[in-house]
Structure formats: C-alpha cells, structure tokens
C-alpha cells in the first residue's frame, strides 16, 4: 500500500501504527493533545486514543524526560515530543545522567525504550532557539541512539524503528521539510533505518548528508556537472561508516554536509573514520559544508548560515580539482 504523504503526516501515521500494535506506547509532550502539537504531528491521536495514551505535559522539559524514565521502568514505552530543538537543554541532565546510563547501571535489568522526538534545524524564519541543530551532543553520548529521517518514507520507517527499539532514541525531525510530500509504503520497511542509504547513485563524488540537508544535497546533484552519489545517513548514532566507505572506495572523493556548526560536528567524526579506512582510495581532501561556528543567526540572515546547493557545488568543485 503506497500513499503520497507529507513528512508530518508520515510521522503521524507511524505514531498511530505504533500505538495500535502496542498498548504500552504512549505519547507525552507539551500541547500534543487537542492541539496536535505545534507542528500537528500528533493531530487526531488524542481524539482516537484518549487521555491515557496521549498526555499533555506541564511546561517543563526535564519533567517530561524524567517522568518518562519512571513510566518506562513501570513497563511503558513513552514517545516524547520536545517542542523545539532549543528547548531540549533543560532535559539534558535527565537524558545524559539517567536515560543514557540506566540500562548499563542496572546491568541490563531496566530497559528504557523511550523515543524523544525533536523538530530541529533552521530555514523557517523563526525567532532564537527555534532553528538549532544539537544532534552532535546526543550522538556523543554512549547509551543513546540518534535517528533523523529526510523524507516521508524514512520518516515513517525510522520513527517506527525508534519506538520499537529497546534503547532510548533521540529522533530529530527536519522541521522545514515537514510539509514535503513523497510516497510511503506502509507494508514493508524499504530500508533499514539503522543503515545509511544511497538516495542517488553517482560515480565522481560521494556527498553525505542527513535530515534537512539530504534534499539540499539532491538539489546540488541535479545542478552539478559531475556525477554525485548522495548518501542519507538516517542513523547518526551508531554511525554506518561502512556504507560511506563502500561509496568512497568507488568515487575517491567525499563531501559531508550538515547544518550544525562544523567544529567537532558529525562531519569531523566521519572525516576521521573515512580518512583512515579509505586512505588509499581518496583522490582529494575530504570537504565539509556546514553551519559556521556561530550562534544561530537572526532569521533575516539565516540563508547566509545554512548550507545551500551552491556551497555544496563549490565543495564538489574543490574535491574534483584537487
């Protein structure tokens, strides 16, 4: 069964599917009930599943994550919504000190199958704290898994995988792509969400992106005079560097793209790993196209911060001309 859906609707359907297949799945977050969340991702679920499955939380992020840990200890499988990327930090302590460590601390006795959904990234003309890309902080923490989809199909399958996981998953949703449409196959999972996937094959340069930047990378591939292979990471932790290496072994060139600041970002880790595993395949230095090392700028200036397809093309050219 294939449907044409937006990312927001695909996420909504994944939540519905997860709630139907497991009565222990419950949704918890700010304004997710009657309102359906500020981005309407939980639209209609409160009406269909009721107060005991879709819970509006008081306005306190540490409280949301901290109580979800207790709910999970009691046997529930909470799916949390943090309203915006910049508001996750009050919950950082519970995520780092408890959520990521309880399974290890209890020698595997206590599992915390909690998914934390976070809309992230810029490009929507928002005020401060509504456009950030904090994924690196979470990918750095042992005990957490980090997923981010890029299109409606990956949104559906990645979110279902996150909820079914017995580990805590930080799930970053590319908010400026919420309304992008694409086909979604509900009957089978076309790709393993824990693996990177090739979304466009090519032979000259491998371009690695994730979340909102996958679309940008595809735009660059359409505009480039070279043949670009575009890889969508999907999983930021664990990192599927084997799939990237397989591609780089063929192309000999790598460009990594993300919105988050470049300094110590995921691009640095990927470059270090590929620099080692593909040392004798690389024809050019690895290029990174990222946000600058500055606080996210006011929205009238955000286009200067966000990597776009032109910046990717410049990086591709330098890789080809090296």
């Amino acid at each position, binding site marked *: 069964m294939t449907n044409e859906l937006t990312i927001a609707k695909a996420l909504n359907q994944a939540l519905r599917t997860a709630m139907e297949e497991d009565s222990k799945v419950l949704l918890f977050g700010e304004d997710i009930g009657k309102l359906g969340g500020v981005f309407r991702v939980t639209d209609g679920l409160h009406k269909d599943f009721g107060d005991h499955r879709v819970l509006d939380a008081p306005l*306190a992020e540490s409280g949301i994550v901290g109580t979800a840990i*207790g709910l999970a200890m009691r046997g529930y499988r909470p799916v949390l919504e943090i309203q915006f990327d910049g508001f996750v930090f009050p919950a950082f302590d519970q995520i780092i000190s408890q959520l990521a*460590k309880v399974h290890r601390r209890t020698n595997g006795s206590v599992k915390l199958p909690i998914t934390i959904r976070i809309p992230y990234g810029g490009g929507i003309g928002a005020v401060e704290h509504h456009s950030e890309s904090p994924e690196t902080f979470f990918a750095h923490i042992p*005990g957490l898994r980090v997923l981010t989809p890029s299109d409606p199909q990956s949104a559906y399958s990645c979110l279902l995988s996150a909820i079914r996981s017995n580990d805590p998953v930080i799930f970053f949703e590319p908010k400026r792509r919420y309304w992008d449409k694409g086909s979604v196959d509900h009957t089978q999972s076309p790709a393993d969400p824990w693996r990177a996937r090739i979304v466009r094959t090519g032979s000259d340069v491998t371009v690695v992106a994730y979340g909102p930047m996958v679309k940008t990378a595809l735009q660059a591939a359409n505009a480039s005079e070279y043949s670009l292979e575009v890889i969508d990471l999907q999983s930021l932790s664990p990192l599927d560097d084997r799939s990237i290496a397989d591609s780089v072994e063929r192309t000999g060139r790598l460009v990594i793209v993300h919105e988050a600041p470049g300094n110590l970002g995921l691009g640095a880790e990927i470059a270090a790993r590929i620099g080692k595993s593909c040392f004798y395949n690389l024809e050019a230095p690895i290029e990174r196209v990222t946000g600058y090392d500055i606080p996210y700028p006011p929205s009238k200036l955000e286009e200067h911060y966000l990597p776009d397809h032109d910046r990717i093309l410049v990086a591709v050219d330098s890789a080809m001309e090296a």
Partner: protein
Amino acid sequence: MTMTTAPQPQNPMVQLLTPEGELVTHESYSLDLTHAQYKSLYREMVFVRRLDQEATALQRQGELGLWASSLGQEAAQVGSAFALEKNDFAFPTYREHGVAWMRGVDPMKIMEVYRGISNGGWDPLEHGCNSYTIVIGNQVLNGVGYAMGCTLDQSEDAVITYFGDGATAQGDVNEGFVFASTFDAPVVFFCQNNQWAISQPSEKFVKTPIYKRADGFGFPGVLVDGNDILAVIAVTKAALNRARSGAGPTLIEAFTYRMGAHTTSDDPTRYRHENDLQNWKLRDPIERLKVMLARNGIADRNFFDAIDIDADAWAHTLRAAVRSMGEPAPESIFDNVYADSHEALDAQRAAFLDYHEGFADSGVKS
C-alpha cells in the same frame, strides 16, 4: 544556641515517641504495632547503624572508595521503608542504606557500588528499590513517572522518593512536585532534612519550612520528628494510603540530623560545632526506642545484648566478604551499554580483547 540545635516548635512536628523514650499521643496520627514488630524495628536500626559503621571503617582501610554515612537517620529511613508494601517502589539517593536494607537489597550489592565494582549493584525491579541516584534530585522525577504509571495501570501501588534538604533547591524536585500534582500521582515525597547540604546549613537556603512548600503545589505537607521511628511510620503510612486512594502526593519533611560527615571525603569540623552533634546525640533514634522497649517491658537487657552480638558477628562476615570481593572481567565495561545489538561496540570490545591478548598477564579473557 544556633538555629540548627534549637528544638523545633512542638506543635507542627508530629511525634509519638519523645527523645526521652516516652510514648505520647497525637491528635491526627497513631500507630499500633505488635511487640514483635517494635523489637524487629529496633533490630533493623541497629543493623543499619552497624552496616554504616563497618562501611566507614572499610573506607578508612582502603577497601571502599567512598562512603556516604546514614548515621543518625536510621529512624527516618527504616521507618519510612517499613511503611511500604512489597509492590511499592522506592527511589533513594546514595545515602538511603536503611531503605535499601528494608527493601531486601543485599548489603554486599551496596558495597559493590562504593567499592567501584558496579554503578548500580542490585536489580531495581526485583526489590522495588531503584539504584542509588547520585545526581541530586533526578530520582524525584523518575519516581513521579513511575507513580504516574501506577495510576495508568489502575493499580494500588505507590511510590516513595527520597531527597535531602539541599535537593529542594533543584529544579527536578520542584518539577516533580508540579507533575505529581498535575497527574495526582501516588507518590510520597520523603525529604530527610538532615540540616546540612555538605557544608551549608539548611537554614541558609530554606526560608520557608520545607513541608510548607507543599501548599504552593497543591498538596499536603507534614513535618515529622525524623528521629522518632513510630511517628515516621504513622505519617508515611497515612501518606501512602492517601496516594493509593487516588488523592495524590504528600510531602513529608522528616526533621533529623546528619550525625556523620557528608561522605568520607568530607571534614565537618571545618564548618560546624561539636556542640550540635552532642545535642543531637540526646535525640538519638535508636536510644529512644530502646528506652521505650525497656520501660514498657517489651524487651530486656538480654534482648539488646543478643542483637549487639548478632550485629557484630554479621559485620565481621561482611568485612571478610568485602575484602575478598572479586572484580568483574575487564571486557565487561562494554556490557549492557545498549539493550539491542550494536555492531560498533561489539567491534570495540573485540579490539579491546585483541589488544589485551598481546600481554602475558592481562587478566582479560580472549
């Protein structure tokens, strides 16, 4: 005399057993236990104090890395945990040895944590007692969430979550109050006001008595003499019953005193007077129950002597067991980081084993 040594006003603080060991009545709370139960409570407190004494000594001998003493807080801990049912769940801090003891946790598992063998020791689900939580106040929210789950399950299970006077400054504790009140969570907030947040006296940062803060969150607060085990049990049982009935949380402030250092790394002589300690020795939780038992003919000298002998013998066994405690295999550092399979970590473990295989006496299994 400073504020910390002054007796609290008599009226608001629930007391059923005076420091002199006299039974008194209270208009709202009473407790009716069998003689066997009174004697058992005495025995538990003596053993918990002996555990604390032994662990402090073991730390001084280099057998434990650290110890957080529960000295003087035995009545608050043993009494509140005694009030729990088997299916209830306790969320302790790192000082609640009396609670862990009452929940059936093997003291050797507590020793593992302070010896550096494990970060958790026991299985929280088996004992209805969470791992010790070290980050101040985190466990309060975890406990409230567990209690919310009890409500969703439509069960009559309840939760008790522990914290100290210092933790009342933490956001998590205050958020815990808000969430519990919002969802009428069946949770008892049990604050042991031992009057010291390491070197800071609680009078410095507690401008409204802790139990009165409950008013602002929309649930009752009760002040109890934390060194009176009978009052602690009565007050905690009432709060748990209220929680089970669906009426929501209660905040209990158990007024007590940290008779030891914050931990074995601390030096309280730098910040508090010896007089304080001497005054609180007169309010010792174990002594006052002992006087009550003797005065009412419930127990005699033979009983007390026999318990002391048992506790000494038990402590001797514990000491030997700690000294001969084994260490986990080095490669176990990779265990249980994730619940589901994780290839990258498996690869790191394999590389770790491979690396250590190159050494003659690595202690690592290949």
